[in-house]
């Protein structure tokens, strides 16, 4: 069982500068050639201020969080079981987004292979004015490293 005291542990905001080139490479890696991710003029003609980031782009953001530290255990393996995003607005090239990560919950669930430890990790992205841009929630099945006797 994971340590319940981990709940609420958080990392300080970490600045991510959204670069046009990374948006392009991210979209290319998905095989997604929608011009709103590549072409500024096209994006503007589509009603956006500039090039837009794809919906799962926050997956590329860095955070100051170290999951081992936040959860307080050594980690043998992590299995990503669920992911959700809530968006206040689209993310655009040139945005400066501060990402912080917190442990929203740790719990035990019974699955087909018996009991498993689950951690729910929440990322929050805010702009320079402090306005919320997105929230992301990861559900992870955690296998803690066995401690040496």
């Amino acid at each position, binding site marked *: 069982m994971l340590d319940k005291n981990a709940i609420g542990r958080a990392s300080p905001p970490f600045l991510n500068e959204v670069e046009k080139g990374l948006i392009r490479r991210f979209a290319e890696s998905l095989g*997604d050639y929608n011009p709103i991710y590549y072409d500024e003029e096209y994006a503007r003609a589509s009603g956006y201020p500039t090039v837009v980031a794809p919906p799962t782009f926050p997956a590329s953001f860095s955070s100051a969080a170290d999951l081992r530290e936040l959860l307080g255990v050594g980690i043998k393996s992590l299995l990503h079981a669920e992911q959700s995003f809530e968006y206040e607005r689209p993310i655009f090239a040139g945005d400066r987004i501060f990402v912080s990560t917190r442990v929203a919950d740790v719990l035990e669930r019974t699955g087909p292979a018996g009991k498993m430890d689950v951690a729910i990790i929440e990322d929050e992205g805010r702009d320079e004015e402090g306005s919320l841009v997105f929230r992301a929630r990861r559900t992870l099945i955690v296998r803690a490293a066995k401690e040496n006797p």
Partner: protein
Amino acid sequence: MPARKLYFETIRVGDELPALAKAPIDRVQLARYAGASGDFNPIHVDEVYAKSVGMPSVYAPGMLVMGMLGQLISDWARGGQLRRYHVRFIKMVWPGDTIVCKGRVSDRHGEGGRYFVEVEIWAENQKGELVMKGQSTIQLFYSLEDENRQRAGQSPIVIEVPRESILSASSSSEEADEDDQATASGSKKTPREKPAAKMASAPRKARK
């Protein structure tokens, strides 16, 4: 010229999103995604490592497939704004797999001049097996006229559109869906997403 936009007034519950067939996933794509996302977990890029921990080969990160399903939504909902996007990862995706993304409108509603459609989305591999499923909420303008008014700084068109869920009629006895059923008569709306409670239940089959 930008593509045509999608407006709320033209959408009906049960509408299918045009299926999106992606190119087969290869190890180069896994490397590209690792580079773009910054996730260099060796299980997705290092064949030697993957085999050393008992895997037949490297496999695709779930987030890559979630990105593909995101393309399905964005391609369909041009001019809309994604509000919520949730998936459950169900089956591993391997190099050589071909992902097909599918979706269907499960609900539509509008209140106070804001209009939303809910879509169920899922991804299948080349054997037709379900690898991922989820839901998304997209906000749209009611119509071209509504968009023009709002872009001109005028008030939106306001039409009250109650939820019109088909989930209750067509899905299995999962908890969240029963809640929907209970509230389909139009009282309080229940968020469908219950990540904390849903995971232990068996994955449902995508409906054909």
